[in-house]
């Protein structure tokens, strides 16, 4: 839930990276933390466990500066992808303003992507939100692995699997190399701020 301070003309919103385990959500945040130093407004906090799996969430605050007379701050979160951390995923999703769904391009992870998207839809519903209405961007990650001969799903197939009904913007990416990471975040922030503008008319 975005926080507005009309007096100070400040807006703070929440963007969550969602997706199946090991799809690269934390890698996205790590890249942003390392590459967008001007925008980063604090430490990146990662709470992980055995095998570098996200246990609770990752957190990274960034600032976008003045947009239409408003100082915009964004809190970036990731959720734990493993199925067993369902209740934590739901907690982290609370009050979300924009979502980046990180899908794993590996052929062997096709079903996990679909299950995770279904999980997102059902968690949003429990907060009274529709997946069709929340600002959402698809990221097809790990595209770089094609060069190593690893079987990946074609983008068209991923679009059919995950985005046929949603029809949201999608970005092909390699979070480990940074490709598409900024573009994904930019798309999501655009959609999120537009949605908040429609709802709260914050911009001058």
């Amino acid at each position, binding site marked *: *839930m975005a926080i507005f301070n009309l007096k100070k003309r400040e807006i703070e919103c929440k963007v969550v990276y969602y997706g199946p*385990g*090991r799809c690269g959500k934390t890698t996205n945040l790590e890249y942003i933390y390392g590459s967008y130093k001007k925008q980063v407004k604090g430490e990146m*906090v990662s*709470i992980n*466990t*055995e*095998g*570098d*799996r996200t*246990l*609770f969430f990752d*957190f990274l605050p960034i600032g976008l500066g003045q947009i239409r007379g408003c100082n915009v701050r964004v*809190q970036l979160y990731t959720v734990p992808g493993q199925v*067993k*951390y369902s*209740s*934590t995923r739901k*907690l982290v999703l*609370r*009050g979300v303003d924009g979502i980046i769904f990180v899908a794993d391009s*590996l052929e*062997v*992870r096709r079903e996990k992507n679909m299950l995770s998207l279904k999980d997102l839809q*059902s968690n949003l*519903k*429990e907060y*009274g939100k529709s997946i069709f209405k929340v600002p959402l961007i698809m990221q097809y990650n*790990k595209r770089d*692995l094609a060069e*190593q*001969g*690893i*079987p990946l799903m074609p983008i068209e197939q991923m679009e059919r699997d995950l985005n046929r009904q949603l029809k949201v913007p999608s970005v092909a990416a390699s979070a480990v190399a940074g490709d598409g990471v900024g573009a994904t975040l930019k798309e999501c922030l655009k959609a999120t701020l537009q949605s908040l503008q*429609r*709802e*709260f008319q914050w911009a001058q």
Partner: protein
Amino acid sequence: MRFNGLTGALMDIKQQLKALLQEAETYRTQGLIAEAHLRYTDAADLIKSIGKLKNRESLLSAISEKIQALDSTKRKVDKGPTTPELSKKAQDLIKNLFAFSENKDKDSAALEGAVALAKFGQFDRAVIELNELLQKDAIRVEAAKNILRCHLASTSPDEAVAQYRQWFSDDRFQSGQLETVRIYLDEILQKRGVEADLPSAIEHVDKPDAEVAIEAEAAAEMEEEFLDITSIGITFDSGPRKGKIVEFDVNFQSGNMLSLIISKQEQELIESLSAGMKLQDVQYFSPIAIFNGAGLVTSKTQIKAGPKQGDFCLDVRIVSSS
């Protein structure tokens, strides 16, 4: 030709093997344990199917080692704690980020912070902070309930019962407050099939005050935990939709009070619903079950501003469910 054919076939198999091992190794480095395991097993099966392969035994042995290492990682991941105790810094962050307090007083915000810690499994610190909040009269009952929740989640019902008894024997709770806590704990224990003798504070007041007992029960009823209702189906017994079920998504829920948004396009529906109206046949849909019951329309308000301007907000109280 025959020689070339055999060589070609062997080359093919070598390529397949190389591809399988490369895939397996990539999945392993990606942390995809099950997928890596499967590819290594496929590779081992392929090697076993070739009679005359150079280094056959050493290859199989290397793959077996890889599989064993994967199994060991899997065991560690599976056994990994779901809610380990975090550093103070991480706990402070959780309190700060997940308290969701908006314009609330300091004590309520502190309560939310402690509850956030409990939700993330940080029970030890949550209990310490909740115990401090027991000193605040306005949030004492909520703090006590959350302390009991922490005991029930982290240790055992016995701890929760012992905690209640300790409160019973000291004098920081008013009898009505303690009775509310007792009813709350008793209901949870009953649901879990645990029998416990929880002494009632009401019986121990010098002059049993019926009003106090009624108040305590009413408060307990008020604070009864309601399931999250995601949508409701109302069967209309009059108007143009008579006899039909119309489903509405629940926009907001607070206890037994549900808020629905009805589009201004649904003029007929809006007119057939009014404040004070009893809805005799309502289906309540929650993520885990459907309940039939009744509802009471407590208010109907037209939204004056924002993207839903002109739509109506209908507040419905769950009257009973069966």
